[in-house]
C-alpha cells in the first residue's frame, strides 16, 4: 500500500504492507512533521494533499484507544507521545482494531509483531522524505560450516531443526528478545552459529541483534516464520508473503499459523506429526480425510541444498 502526503515545502512517501508499520530513526528527520501534516489535513487544511487507497487518520495524542472503535480499514497514524503507547492493554487494543497503523516511535513495543520489512526510517532528498527499510533480509540457504543453530522458538520451530539436522546442535533462546543475550552468554565467537528468527515479527529486536553481531560471522535464517515455511512447501504449496497481508491479521506469522490450523488442525506446541521423518502416512488416524496424504516431503532439501 502506498501513502503520500505533501505540501509545497515537503513530501512524504511511505510504502507498507500489513497491519503495523514503524517509522523511526534520527532526530530531525521529519517524523513529527509527517504526523502534524496529517493532523492539519484532518482539520481541513487544503494546502496539504494526501494520497492513499484508504482513509488516513492521525490519532490525537491524548486518545487512549477507545476512540479507535468507529474506525475500520483506515490507516491510523500514531505519534510517539500518544497515550495509547503507554497503556498496559495497548497490545490488546491494537490486536482487536481492524485498521492499519503507522506508528512513529523508537520505543521498543515488543508486544507488536512488526515485520523487518515494515521497520522504516525517513531518507531526505530535498523536499522528498521517503520511508526506507532499515535492516536487511538474508534468506540464507547456505548451511556449510554450521555447528550451532539458535532459534527464537522453543516449540515446533526448534523441534524441526532437531528432527532434520540432528548432527547440528540446536537450542532455543526462548524468545526473540533473548537471542542477543543468549548469543553473548554462550559464544565468544559467532562463527559456525546460525540464528533463526521470524522476520515477520522481529523488528523490535533487530537493532540490538545487529549491533551485537556486527562484524561477526554469524549466519542468519530469517524466514517469515516457521509456519510460513511449512505452508510454502509440499504438501501445501501455498505462497503468502508480506504483500498479501491486510489489517485483519497482526502478522504473516499469525496468518500462516491460522491457515495451517484450517488445513490440518496444526498445533504450534509440537512438531507436526506428518512432517516427522519416520512418519508412515497410512497409519495416521486422519488419513481417510486428509487432502495431503502420501506426498513426498524432503524439508532438509528444501531448507538447504548445500548443507554438506
Amino acid at each position, binding site marked *: 500500500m502506498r501513502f503520500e502526503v505533501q505540501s509545497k515545502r515537503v513530501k512524504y512517501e511511505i510504502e507498507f504492507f500489513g497491519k503495523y508499520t514503524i517509522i523511526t530513526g534520527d*532526530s530531525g528527520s521529519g517524523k513529527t512533521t509527517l504526523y502534524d501534516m496529517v493532523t492539519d489535513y484532518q482539520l481541513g487544511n487544503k494546502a496539504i494533499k494526501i494520497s492513499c487507497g484508504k482513509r488516513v487518520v492521525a490519532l490525537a495524542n491524548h486518545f487512549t484507544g477507545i476512540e479507535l472503535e468507529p474506525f475500520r480499514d483506515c490507516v491510523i497514524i500514531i505519534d510517539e507521545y500518544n497515550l495509547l503507547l503507554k497503556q498496559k492493554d495497548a497490545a490488546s487494543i491494537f490486536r482487536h482494531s481492524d485498521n492499519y497503523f503507522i506508528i512513529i516511535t523508537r520505543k521498543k513495543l515488543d508486544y507488536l509483531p512488526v515485520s523487518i520489512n515494515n521497520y522504516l526510517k525517513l531518507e531526505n532528498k530535498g523536499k522528498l522524505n521517503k520511508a526506507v527499510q532499515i535492516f536487511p533480509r538474508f534468506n540464507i540457504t547456505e548451511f556449510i560450516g554450521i555447528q550451532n543453530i539458535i532459534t527464537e522458538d522453543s516449540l515446533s520451530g526448534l523441534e524441526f531443526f532437531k528432527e532434520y539436522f540432528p548432527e547440528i546442535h540446536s537450542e532455543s533462546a526462548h524468545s526473540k528478545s533473548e537471542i*542477543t543475550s543468549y548469543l553473548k552468554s554462550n559464544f565468544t565467537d559467532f562463527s559456525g552459529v546460525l540464528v533463526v528468527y521470524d522476520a515477520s515479527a522481529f523488528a523490535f529486536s533487530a537493532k540490538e541483534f545487529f549491533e551485537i553481531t556486527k562484524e561477526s560471522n554469524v549466519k542468519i535464517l530469517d524466514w517469515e516464520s516457521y509456519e510460513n515455511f511449512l505452508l510454502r512447501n509440499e504438501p501445501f504449496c501455498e505462497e503468502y508473503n508480506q504483500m498479501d497481508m491486510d489489517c485483519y491479521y497482526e502478522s504473516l506469522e499469525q496468518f500462516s499459523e491460522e491457515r495451517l490450523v484450517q488445513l490440518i488442525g496444526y498445533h504450534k506446541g509440537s512438531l507436526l506429526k506428518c512432517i516427522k521423518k519416520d512418519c508412515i502416512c497410512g497409519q495416521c488416524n486422519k488419513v481417510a480425510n486428509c487432502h495431503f496424504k502420501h506426498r513426498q516431503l524432503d524439508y532438509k532439501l528444501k531448507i538447504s541444498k548445500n548443507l554438506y
Partner: protein
Amino acid sequence: MLNIRFGATDSTVTYVDGFFNSDYEDEWLLDPFVQEMVLDIDKSKILSPNCIESPIFGQIPPTRLSGGVKALILMLKTDEEIWATACGDNCAKWITKIAEMKDLTICLEHFMSFEDNHFPFRDANTGEIYNDYLDAIINKNGKYY
C-alpha cells in the same frame, strides 16, 4: 556522570515536547553549546532566542525544533530525568558530552546506538556501574521496563 534508567517512572519527563515548549528560557538558546547541537541535529541556525532558520521551513520558533534536540537542551539546562527515547542515535554523542559536564540521568525505552559503547555509566534502576553499554543491555535481556 551518566545515569541511565531503563523504563520510565512517574518522575521521568516523558512528554519532552510539551515540557520544553512550556519551560524553555530565552537565554538557553544563546548558549553556543545549544546552538551547536541545534545545527548538528536539526541543521538549523539559531538567529535569536525566538527565531531559528530551518532549511526546510524557513524561520521557525524554538517550539518547532525536533523532539531530539529539545530533549538534549532539557538534559543540559535542567535537573530533570529526561526521556531519551525522544532522541535518535544522532543525539547519542551529545548525551555523553553533556554527561561529561554534569551529573545527568536519562531514561531509555529503546536500544540507543552509541558510536562507542565503552563508556562508564550507572544503571539508575540497580545502582550498578557499567563500563560497557552493551553489557547492561545483555543483562536486561533486551527489556526496557
